[in-house]
């Protein structure tokens, strides 16, 4: 049994909107083992990023985590004070963001930004920090680290910026890396390179990675387990092969069906009708019921629980037993 690195239990995050609190993430629980890549999938606005920001405790001021635990290496991050949290950020958990070109400070040379993170968490001299920055840039596959260190972000390409960002995130060798759609803004060849790099990091450093994405291709390639989120809830959790082979939740089925396949000859892509419900006007029963073609009366009345399908495969649907056979 692999060692648990991060365990999120019953996380609930709320936002204040027009003086009322709306729930963006509700009752979310998952865990990541050391050296494991967990995929977090869902469409825009389903609470993926809010979940990751809750783990980092980087939420905006108009929000609060009202319930739950985020246990990293045995310590509950939600109980840490500001200073403790600063020490954890960067050193134990680091984050990579969606837009590499905007993730780097345009006014600072790469060297300064990289060494900043290194010096924050290590008792290094400037030379040592420079050396570490050099090494870490080299390890993310940047051909001329010395030259890159001396450049400004606008002189680098998107792929290079993302490599620098990964280098920055990895510079203090965190045990958990949260990647919030790390390849969305990059073109396909660069995407492949970046994903390969992350896989390499996982292998070498035994880092746990939380991969947030809406790209199922990335999930299939990288992750060992997948958590599917919809409207702030986990609707399905399964090992990656099982999820793609036998998706139980209608939403997951819809997601997988809507991925274009080469040579399938289908003229129009199947899609899920409707859109994510607004946070303040959530349907009463199953949150997916209004868009679900299998929905029955019970779906509209009562919200289903996250039930075990088999082993670690879980699904939040009243009808998964019947649907599973169909699919």
């Amino acid at each position, binding site marked *: 049994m692999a060692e648990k690195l991060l365990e999120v239990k019953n996380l609930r995050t709320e936002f204040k909107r027009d003086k009322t609190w709306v729930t963006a993430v509700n009752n979310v629980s998952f865990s990541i083992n050391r050296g494991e890549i967990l995929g977090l999938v869902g469409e825009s606005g389903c609470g993926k990023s809010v979940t990751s920001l809750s783990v980092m405790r980087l939420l905006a*001021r108009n929000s609060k985590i009202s319930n739950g635990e985020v246990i990293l290496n045995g310590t509950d991050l939600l109980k840490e004070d500001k200073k403790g949290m600063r020490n*954890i950020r960067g*050193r134990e958990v680091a984050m990579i963001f969606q837009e590499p070109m905007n*993730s780097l400070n345009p006014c*600072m040379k790469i060297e300064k930004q990289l060494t900043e993170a290194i010096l*924050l968490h290590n008792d290094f001299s400037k030379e040592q920090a420079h050396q570490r920055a050099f090494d870490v840039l080299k390890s993310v596959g940047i051909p001329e680290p010395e030259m890159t260190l*001396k450049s400004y972000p606008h*002189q680098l390409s998107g792929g290079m910026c993302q490599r620098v960002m990964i280098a*920055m995130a990895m510079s203090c060798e965190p045990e958990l890396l949260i990647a919030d759609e790390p390849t969305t803004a990059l073109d396909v060849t660069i995407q492949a390179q970046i994903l390969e790099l992350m896989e390499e990091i996982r292998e070498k450093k035994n880092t746990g990675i939380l991969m947030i994405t809406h790209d199922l291709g990335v999930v299939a390639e990288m992750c060992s387990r997948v958590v599917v989120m919809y409207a702030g809830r986990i609707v399905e959790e399964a090992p990656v092969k099982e999820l793609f082979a036998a998706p139980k939740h209608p939403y997951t089925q819809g997601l997988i069906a809507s991925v274009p396949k080469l040579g399938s000859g289908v003229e129009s892509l199947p899609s899920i009708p409707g859109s994510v419900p607004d946070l303040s006007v959530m349907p009463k029963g199953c949150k997916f019921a209004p868009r679900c073609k299998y929905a029955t009366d019970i779906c509209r009345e009562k919200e289903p629980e996250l039930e075990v399908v088999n082993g670690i495969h879980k699904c939040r649907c009243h009808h998964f037993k019947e649907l599973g056979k169909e699919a």
Partner: protein
Amino acid sequence: MAQTNTNLDQNKFAAAEELPKAQSKVKEFTKKFMKRKTAVVSLIFILFIILMAIIAPFVVPYAPDQPDYTALLQGPSAAHIWGTDEFGQDVFSRLMVGSRLSLSCALIATVIGTAGGVVLGLIAGFYGGFVDSLIMRCCDVLFAFPDILLAIAVVAIIGPGMVNVMIAVAVFTVPSFARIIRSATISVKQSLYVEVARSLGCKNSRILFVHVFPGTIQSMIVNFTMRIGTAILAASSLSFLGFGANVTEPDWGAMLSLGRNYLNTAPHMVLFPGILIFLTVLAFNLLGDGLRDTLDPKMN
């Protein structure tokens, strides 16, 4: 042709190896700035005035306080190109030497005001909430007064004199800076790289000074340049009203004030200081405009 192209590429490559494009950003800026003729002319004029402020006492034809009782209130002539005042002092010499007092007063006042405004603006924009409201409402109160009136009020409270004029001018520079820097701070604060810095464990104070502050420098430079013009005008006005420099000192405002008594008989005593103040303020404003247009990526 092909030959030149390869040469160019090689040069580019060589430059990139030494210090990639860091230089070329300055070059690019200079190139864009040079296209704005009015700004360039303004800059040259300002540099000339600054040069005068430094070297005037050594190069002007007469000492600024040297009276010549044989030539009182004379109009422009070969001996005194901008005429003489009631004590027979050379107006040109006095103005050139006077640029020292007027410019330094305006500059010091603007620097102090900028420093105060920038710190307040950064704090207000970055921390938001109550601190923001408190600072901005105080600025609003100061905004409610016309600039000069505020400066007069300040001088009236702390008393006349050059130093107090500087303080007064600095005080009314603060709110406009605070407001501009606050809005710049708010926009920089929301950028992703600030979030990244936070995700790496940076402290608020560090994020503010290392990551946010540099992003506001651009608006600071532009506003600083423009405020110098305003400060010169304000300092001269205060001197003109008798709050600032002593009338015997060679200060532009004070000279204007002195000449007022002889407006009918010796208009040159008012004309030349007036024109000089006008041109200097105009030059600073045009330079500020030029800088803003050059620095603003949307304008290109």
